């Protein structure tokens, strides 16, 4: 896009209510933050729903017979954009055929209070434009749409991938929903999603204008299902931006730290970013208070504060430095220690929690890692 065209698009969007900064409702649209892992195995008889790169989830729906595959964060992105990573689906075992009730998609659930400015349910409801880069080993017509949870409404759109294994830039504009509902709360407000394949049950009812959700509206217009039936088929996504207005503007880059902090409202770990969950490591381990000589076989505990306040009270997993979940290490400073000791938490809120061990090993303190999940 030329500078003049970019400026014109920005002005057009500002006139529709957009901002010049913080314009992207999507978090981690450049796929750089991947706290959970960098590869995620999906299978018809195993994991069918999971977060992948932070804030993005993959969903197999729902009765696939043979399908398995992998979502992964990869260092592959369109050149000249400043993007460095993408989220990649690779089909492993393929379906022999796509049944009518089978589908696979990627989604991001946006917190409701963050999209209240769209004024849904009023005459002032604002349009939004979704832009993204996509690369696929299979060309064809794909569905990408918006789901509105509070109103249980949907609006669908499609785009065409014309060249295999080539990065292509797509923009889709969606009208404001004058009859919609987005609550002023921390629940789900708006959900952009990208269908990779979708059986006939999900493609038959036209919902190219906002209306009530039914399964038949979910992927209206989607026609390409070969990712389900082609082992080794790939689908890449990055540079995702959802902004107010009818024009797509250049992807809003931000520092890794800024993106990470945004992600941590929904998921946080005590491990270093590039360290796997349950890794055997002392790096970054957290210690409760303790003092040499104050040994006890009884209760040891501390309060743990999050780096970022959570959307809701978080689900916690506590690990000892040996990688055992639901356990801690009880430590007698510089003398001895014992991993795999009992651990529990209490009074968890959006800012932190109490963690304690009632294990029997004679120690002065507890040592642990944690993950905190407050995703939508």
């Amino acid at each position, binding site marked *: 896009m030329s500078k003049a065209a970019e400026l014109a698009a920005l002005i057009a969007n500002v006139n529709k209510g957009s901002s010049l900064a913080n314009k992207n409702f999507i978090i981690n649209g450049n796929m750089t933050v991947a706290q959970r892992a960098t590869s995620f195995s999906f299978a018809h008889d195993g994991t069918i729903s999971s977060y992948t790169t932070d804030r993005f989830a993959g969903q197999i729906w729902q009765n696939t017979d043979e399908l398995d595959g992998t979502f992964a964060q990869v260092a592959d992105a369109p050149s000249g954009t400043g993007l460095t990573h993408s989220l990649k689906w690779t089909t492993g075992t393929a379906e022999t055929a796509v049944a009518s009730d089978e589908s696979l998609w990627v989604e991001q659930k946006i917190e409701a209070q963050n999209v209240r400015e769209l004024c849904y349910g009023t005459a002032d409801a604002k349009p939004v434009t979704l832009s993204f880069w996509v690369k696929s080993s299979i060309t064809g017509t794909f569905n990408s749409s918006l789901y509105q949870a509070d109103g249980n409404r949907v609006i669908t759109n499609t785009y065409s991938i014309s060249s295999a294994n080539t990065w292509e830039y797509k923009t889709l504009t969606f009208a404001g929903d004058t009859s919609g509902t987005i609550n002023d709360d921390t629940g789900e407000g708006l959900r952009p999603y990208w269908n990779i394949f979708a059986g006939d049950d999900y493609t038959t009812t036209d919902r190219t204008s906002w209306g009530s959700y039914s399964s038949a509206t979910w992927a209206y217009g989607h026609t390409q299902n070969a990712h389900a039936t082609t082992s080794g088929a790939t689908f890449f996504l990055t540079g995702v931006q959802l902004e107010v207005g009818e024009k797509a503007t250049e992807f809003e880059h931000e520092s890794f730290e800024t993106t990470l902090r945004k992600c941590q409202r929904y998921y946080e770990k005590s491990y270093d970013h590039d360290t796997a969950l349950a890794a055997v490591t002392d790096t970054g381990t957290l210690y409760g208070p303790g003092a040499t000589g104050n040994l006890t076989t009884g209760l040891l505990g501390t309060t743990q504060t999050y780096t970022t306040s959570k959307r*809701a009270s978080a689900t916690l997993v506590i690990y000892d430095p040996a990688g055992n979940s639901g356990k801690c290490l009880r430590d007698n400073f510089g003398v001895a220690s014992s991993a795999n000791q009992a651990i529990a938490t209490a009074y968890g809120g959006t800012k932190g929690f109490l963690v304690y061990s009632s294990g029997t090993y004679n120690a002065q303190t507890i040592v642990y890692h944690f993950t905190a999940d407050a995703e939508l």
Partner: protein
Amino acid sequence: MNITSAQHQKFMDEDTGILKVTIDGIEMQVPKDPANRHYAEIMKQVKEGTLTIKDAD
């Protein structure tokens, strides 16, 4: 989300507001917050009669 056990927890004889839950083979501490997606799924399964929350030890 394969939930195989759930149990109330007490600390100093008070309910901690946390369930100890095993999900996909991993022991998790799930707050009794309807906005928490794991708690919402637990309560859905309890309502459907496929999961029972044990009393605290």
